[in-house]
């Protein structure tokens, strides 16, 4: 026990030192906030007589006894929370006091997403779409964070941020169009389901390779900083993706190049079947932030207000101070990883049930609304019915639509079509003319 106490103390000291340093930096930033890039290149005053370490690599004191810094994983960075599981505000000073319409909107977007998930999940089970990934348990992180952003803020995500698009008003028809890869799909039917993107809603198209979006988000944030338009970039990823080299790249670049960027890690405990104790041995992802010189926080991802507050403040400061923030939202992936996965092979039903029945972002928000008299059984029934109808209608429309024209297999490889590709396109059509009965041409637009 003494040992544990010892390293707790040590880590606290380490952390508060980081915070102090940051505070100092923040002060100097406010004085000349525009660009401090590559400050290291300016020659530092060099005083060889001072009795302190002169190493250019770190600013620290000497110490005359041997002591390794221990990680503090037993008592980690605390989880910020605004309301408890019954939807009660714990600390009134932290209550964002959002108006009723806004909270109702949160709830409706989260539940609409949930309804869409159920229907599309079933649709995949029946082989109507080829693949699907649900958002069960993560509805609060998406909606709470999206609500704290400006619609102009650029979103880089992964495959589990449909709620952000939902919040920004992405039509159900376009979600469906992408999953069905029909003529209405903005992506022209080229990617697997749930790889959404929307230029109008500033949501950069999803790609399958994990974590590639992280350094990209840093680059986009740098460009936005130079535009000086008071926008921020948010970049979502899971705790598994954070193990990729690209995550390291993105964190470090964002810090050294002073990018107005929010890294939003959804830590749901699993990367497919891999539990977090096989993913990392530190204190989650949030504890890595200070190591990169990044302000970091851990929030309860099932608490939409905690997520909202953290994102709101991170956004404000990221823009004001041109520096990245890291938010680790603790959640639980209630659904399977994807429709290609059966999670009962690696985790217990009891565990899943706990999060589904006792600690769910949707039920917590509902408790909050009920306590204020903003929502009752009747509203719930009506909304369930209506949202199901909305989704089913979009679903049926999507299923009836044709697939995009086969020519679209060839465009957009380059902005222009190279002659060699033009030739390949012609050769495909020559082939189809002769062998058309072997191809599903009827389902495609003509």
């Amino acid at each position, binding site marked *: 026990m003494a040992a544990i106490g010892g390293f707790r103390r040590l880590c606290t000291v380490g952390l508060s030192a980081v915070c102090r340093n940051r505070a100092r930096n923040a002060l100097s930033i406010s004085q000349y906030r525009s660009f401090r890039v590559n400050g290291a290149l300016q020659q530092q005053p060099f005083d060889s007589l001072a009795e302190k370490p002169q190493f250019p690599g770190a600013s620290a004191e000497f110490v005359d006894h041997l002591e390794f810094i221990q990680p503090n994983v037993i008592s980690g960075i605390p989880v910020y929370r605004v309301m408890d599981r019954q939807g009660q505000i714990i600390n009134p000073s932290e209550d964002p006091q959002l108006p009723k319409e806004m909270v109702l909107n949160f709830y409706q977007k989260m539940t609409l997403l949930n309804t869409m998930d159920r229907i599309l999940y079933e649709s995949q089970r029946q082989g109507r779409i080829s693949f699907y990934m649900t958002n069960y348990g993560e509805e609060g992180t998406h909606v709470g964070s999206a609500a704290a952003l400006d619609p102009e803020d650029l979103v880089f995500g992964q495959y589990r941020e449909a709620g952000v698009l939902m919040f920004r008003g992405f039509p159900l028809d376009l979600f469906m169009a992408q999953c069905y890869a029909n003529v209405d799909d903005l992506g022209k039917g080229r990617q697997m389901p749930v790889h959404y993107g929307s230029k109008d809603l500033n949501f950069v198209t999803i790609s399958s390779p994990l974590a590639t979006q992280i350094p990209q988000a*840093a680059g986009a944030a740098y460009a936005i900083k130079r535009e000086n338009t008071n926008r921020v970039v948010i970049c979502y990823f899971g705790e598994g993706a954070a193990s990729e080299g690209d995550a390291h790249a993105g964190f470090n670049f964002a810090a050294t190049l002073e990018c107005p960027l929010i890294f939003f890690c959804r830590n749901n405990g699993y990367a497919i079947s891999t539990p977090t104790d096989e993913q990392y041995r530190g204190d989650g992802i949030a504890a890595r932030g200070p190591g990169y010189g990044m302000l970091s926080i851990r929030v309860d991802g099932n608490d939409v207000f905690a997520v909202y507050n953290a994102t709101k403040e991170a956004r404000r400061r990221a823009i004001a101070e041109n520096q990245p923030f890291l938010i680790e939202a603790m959640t639980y992936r209630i659904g399977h990883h994807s429709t290609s996965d059966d999670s009962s092979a690696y985790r217990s039903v009891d565990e899943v049930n706990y999060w589904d029945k006792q600690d769910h972002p949707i039920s917590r928000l509902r408790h909050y609304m009920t306590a204020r008299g903003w929502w009752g059984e009747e509203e719930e029934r009506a909304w369930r019915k209506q949202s199901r109808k909305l989704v089913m209608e979009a679903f049926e429309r999507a299923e009836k639509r044709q697939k995009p024209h086969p020519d679209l297999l060839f465009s957009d490889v380059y902005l222009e079509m190279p002659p060699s590709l033009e030739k390949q396109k012609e050769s495909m059509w020559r082939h189809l003319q002769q062998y058309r009965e072997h191809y599903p041409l009827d389902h495609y637009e003509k």
Partner: protein
Amino acid sequence: MAAAVRLLLRAGSACKSSVANVHRGAGGGLGNAAPSASSVCAPHTSTQRRHAAHFTFQPEPVPSQYGPTQKMNLFQSVTSALDNTLASDPTAVIFGEDVAFGGVFRCTVGLRDKYGKDRVFNTPLCEQGIVGFGIGLAVAGATAIAEIQFADYIFPAFDQIVNEAAKYRYRSGNLFDCGNLTIRAPWGCVGHGALYHSQSPEAFFAHCPGIKIVIPRSPVQAKGLLLSCIIDKNPCIFFEPKILYRAAVEQVPMESYQIPLSQAEVLQEGSDITLLAWGTQVHVMREVAAMAQEKLGVSCEVIDLRTIQPWDIETVCKSVVKTGRLLVSHEAPVTGGFAAEISSTVQEECFLNLEAPITRVCGYDTPFPHIFEPFYIPDKWKCFDAVKRMINY
């Protein structure tokens, strides 16, 4: 570890800069400038001179259509192109490892002072980060010019290039793209670069739809092609033959101009055989053509491919239809090299015109060796011998 090796080479190049006379006359056979300079820098003084350069750079006629010119070597013409870009495009930024002080090959000298440290800046030492960061800049609408310090170190960014940059436009249905991204990297053998300062990785990228790959042969070409890459609305990789950075000197227009991508250039017309190459190897081919003319009375058509992907099939096939023979040469290993692609395509397109098997003279299927480089590279004698065999076929 990679960083340590690079440090050594940086020291070498810094040393060279103090020794080599960058304003040397055009005919100055700079082939040996690099070797002599490096021998000064070498930790062990050696009495044995290095093998002479395997090519001779011959400056081309001064292009008159683009206004006043100035004598520049290849690294200076790259700087000039970057200078023009930063001046005309306020969103353009240049970044990579050590570009702020001018770059380990001096390609960005003076740009930071002229355009500001928010536009010319160092990144942490992380290639996947550099390319990912560049993609992000381009996605947000800025012109991103990323430097990878040696083409040999581009592989950590392979995923970002192949899975991301190349597919951005296609996968998003053209909602998003990173067409404003250009990746520059020193490329090719240098006499003593061994495994990780010599590579020619163009064939790895040629298999990837969505990116353009461009390699110049001279300062004039470098500037015009680089400016085209930067302006092109597709992600481009621009490989700079580093052995030419100082060795190639000619008159280069000071103003901005573009040389079209995906267009090969016929440098010398001929009737008996087509010699196709890119980068430094073009100069080898020119010498081979002269040797073939002189020793064998063979008339060679020399073509610089310039753009590896999408490549100019038409110009190459037109030439082969005329000459009936094709020799393709590149420094990279033969198996899976881009010559294989060219050879196969030309065979399909020009089957009836071919009078001898298409021949590839390339690097061997080994890593690029240090002390054995003179035996490894597809030099003029290997190429000359191939011409001889093809003519006698």
